[in-house]
């Protein structure tokens, strides 16, 4: 069943790469929600996630021919989304205090949104907001999405050993925060 779905998806990607606009639009629409939900967890800010998901869609449109089918299409999309987010955080490092202020506002807004829907803002969510983006991403990819260190390394453009040490450090930080 999974193999059949994967074959159908690859066929759709092939048509999209060859210039079939409706195939590409359908692929993007089907994965929109998945990518958005991933980015909410990565950024811990729904508004920022919304901005990045739109940038991700545009980047996917531009680079559809570069998708080689070695990973799932959803993995390729979240790789692009992750890199856009990391680029943004690195580019804006000089404006760190301003960015921190916006980030804290985003987190507060997110917490308020959740609580207004009678959802609990857990201490794990709180601890996740205090991790650096690099550590939060590797922890999520490993322990929530179940990617291997090799796959995470490929997605982030870092060696698998670095992905492993970042994940271990992130988990250690979470443990400290939750103690």
């Amino acid at each position, binding site marked *: 069943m999974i193999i059949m779905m994967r074959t159908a998806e690859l066929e759709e990607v092939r048509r999209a790469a060859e210039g079939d606009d409706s195939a*590409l639009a359908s692929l993007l629409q089907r994965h929109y929600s998945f990518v958005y939900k991933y980015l909410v967890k990565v950024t811990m800010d729904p508004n920022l996630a919304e901005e990045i998901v739109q940038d991700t869609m545009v980047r996917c449109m531009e680079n559809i021919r570069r998708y080689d089918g070695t990973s799932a299409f959803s993995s390729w999309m979240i790789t692009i989304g992750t890199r856009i987010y990391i680029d943004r955080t690195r580019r804006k490092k000089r404006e760190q205090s301003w960015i921190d202020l916006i980030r804290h506002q985003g987190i507060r807004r997110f917490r308020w949104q959740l609580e207004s829907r009678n959802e609990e803002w857990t201490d*794990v969510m709180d601890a996740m907001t205090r991790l650096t983006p690099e550590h939060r991403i590797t922890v999520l990819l490993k322990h929530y999405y179940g990617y291997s260190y090799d796959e995470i390394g490929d997605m982030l453009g870092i060696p698998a050993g670095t992905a492993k040490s970042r994940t271990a450090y992130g988990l250690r930080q979470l443990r400290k925060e939750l103690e």
Partner: protein
Amino acid sequence: MSRSNESQDQEIVRRLQQSMRALDDVCEPADIPSLATLESRVREQRRIKRRANLVEIICFWLVALMVITLATLLFVSSPAVYLGIQVLGTVIAVIVAALWLVRHRKETMHHE
């Protein structure tokens, strides 16, 4: 890693998965674009890319022609200067590549 740390980590991973699943259940995008909207965005994007590629190719050929013309003129009028520029260019390219490599390695180590 001690056994108690390991079991603590397992507990944290379990709580993490629970919390992240809760976020997945609650967070939905405010507006998923319709197929028609996405199709028109894809068409627009392809048009922009085709145009950008065309401009890029035209610029590339213009610059290439200028460089070839200048290099030919220089080679004919003073071969020594031409060869000097070639050697200097190669040396600078090697230095820039080495500096970039060192900086990239430092950045990678810093982000680990």
